[in-house]
């Protein structure tokens, strides 16, 4: 069963008299444990598509199932629970919580969303800290670490809930090229380790060569490419 399945997905924004067709009839199937990239210029609809898959924004029309669940019509609490249990998010601006340490940031979804018992939380947080190579920075606050490190913490936070799908909207836009490549490599490593599906968007063709499946978005339409070289960019 595919993890993400979209049929004739459309999203139209209405502001005033103007209608903006951000996504125009997208069909999409993503299998579990894939490493997928959406590439397209600014304004092409990458964020819109990711937000719909991420259950943050309902589609205007069409079908959309994620992890077997129809997510086109969820109420706020159900949508929140669904995101908390199934999807992990990585943001362009890292979006760590400044009052929490690295450790606490990773722990947050287990504490405030999934309500796991303390020993289990500790085990998982330490496992993820190790996995993303941030174990020695656990006590630091976000303001005390670099951008690349922040994004590692963000990936750990996304994975700690055992999410089936991690959505990363332009996760490398605020990083230099080297760091960006390393973050993408790390995400792919995580995919290998946890069998989690990653979808990241970018407008940078040089970053996208790391992906295995590439969707090119232009004017709200998708085109699929298999990147045979995916992962062997070095």
């Amino acid at each position, binding site marked *: 069963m595919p993890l993400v399945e979209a049929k004739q997905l459309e999203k139209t924004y209405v502001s005033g008299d103007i209608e903006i067709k951000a996504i125009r009839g997208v069909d999409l199937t993503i299998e579990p444990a894939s490493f997928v990239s959406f590439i397209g210029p600014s304004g092409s609809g990458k964020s819109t598509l990711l937000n719909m898959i991420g259950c*943050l924004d309902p589609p205007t029309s069409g079908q959309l199932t994620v992890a077997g669940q129809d997510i086109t019509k969820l109420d706020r609490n159900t949508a929140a629970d669904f995101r908390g249990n199934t999807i992990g*998010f990585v943001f362009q601006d890292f979006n760590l*919580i400044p*009052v929490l340490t690295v450790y606490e940031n990773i722990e*947050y979804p287990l504490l*405030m969303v999934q309500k796991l018992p303390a020993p289990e939380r500790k085990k998982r947080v330490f496992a993820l800290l190790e996995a993303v190579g941030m174990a020695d920075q656990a006590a630091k606050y976000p303001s005390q670490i670099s951008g690349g490190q922040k994004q590692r913490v963000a990936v750990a936070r996304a994975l700690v809930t055992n999410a089936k799908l991690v959505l990363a909207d332009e996760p490398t836009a605020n990083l230099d090229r080297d760091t960006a490549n390393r973050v993408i490599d790390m995400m792919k490593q995580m995919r290998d380790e946890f069998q989690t599906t990653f979808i990241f968007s970018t407008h940078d063709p040089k970053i996208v060569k790391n992906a295995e499946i590439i969707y090119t978005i232009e004017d709200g339409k998708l085109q699929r490419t298999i990147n045979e070289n995916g992962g062997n960019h070095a």
Partner: protein
Amino acid sequence: MLNILKMAAKNLARYRRRTLLTSILITLGVVAVLLFVSVSGSFKAMMIGQITDSMLGHLQIHRKGYLASIDSLPLNKNITQKQLNKVEEILAAEEAIESYTMRIKLGAMFSNYAETTNIRLNAVTPDRELQSMPLLADRVIKGEKEGLLAKGEILLPELIAKGMQVKVGDSIVLVANNKDGSVNGQSFAVRGILEGITGPGGRDGIMHMEDARELLRIEEMEVSEIAIRLKNIDQMGVVFSSLQEKLGAMTNKEGKPVFEIHTWEKLSPFYNIAKMIDLMTLFIKIMLVAIVLVSIMNVMIMAVYERVNEIGTIAAIGTRPGKILALFVTEGFLLGILGTMVGTIISLIAIAGMNASKITFDFGRQTGLQLTPTIDSAEVITVVLIVIGIAVLGSLQPALKAARMDPITALRHV
């Protein structure tokens, strides 16, 4: 829940200066209210005690119409022996009454053998009067307090004693008109000098009931006024209604009630001052509520505005709106608790300090009254609950705003 508290505390610690300023504001408000309540409350309680325990009693019974003409101290509006018997029967049945005292109020000419003046007097049975007016003896500022007075003795109000240059032990003469219009005179020994107090009867002299009946040539027992002391002033309303009903049932031939009954509140002008104090207390409490509401709302609106992105993040990663609401409300709640706790502690210390330093004040002609501010725990708890409640209320609107934010919009916010 504990996690929400921890998060809220961390966020408050993040803006330390702002948190501190807001809690100081709340602290000041709480201190102002608690100190005002305790000082004004003790002032009020003391003044009421002075009035009821040295002169008025808690309730008074007169013949209907007596009070309206009390300035002329009419003897023909006294309660007669027969009426008195019935009243005493009713009073005996009233459990809440501790004791009562009966008085004949009269006006007389006062002479020190050189000059004369007018004097108003209460004729009393000393032991009954002392039992019902426990603070009366303290008003005797010169002379022997013990036993109040004996037959043939008189307690003079301070002003007359001074004006007529009479001292304790001097002999004076009283001349009074009888009910039937004839005049009678008798000499008395000055037993003591009475301190004046505010309110009706506060500048009257005191003489013995039997002397008054001789002077006025009253054969049968009759009294102008019955002053009642209750076991507990809180029962005043209940006893008043009960007595009013029973006494009101006693009517004359025309069907009009024979007696009138009043509470001290109706008899003393201090009641209005007491009411005013209550009103001021209310205003100060309203101010406190306003201070807390405005400062908490202000801080929380700022907090939500500054953290739009963060709200978007936690919402996106699965925090339910209800939990986001709880996070912000808890922040306001903690701010309220912080300010209130500090405020309450400071207030209690200040109250203890005031008691220790024995502050005195004057009220009218009464000097050297000692302020003993106290505050009962019910009042403290009420203020604490109000402040914390308002703090929660003040953070509710900003918190709702945060909870209702659309995660995408919030995340895009810069």
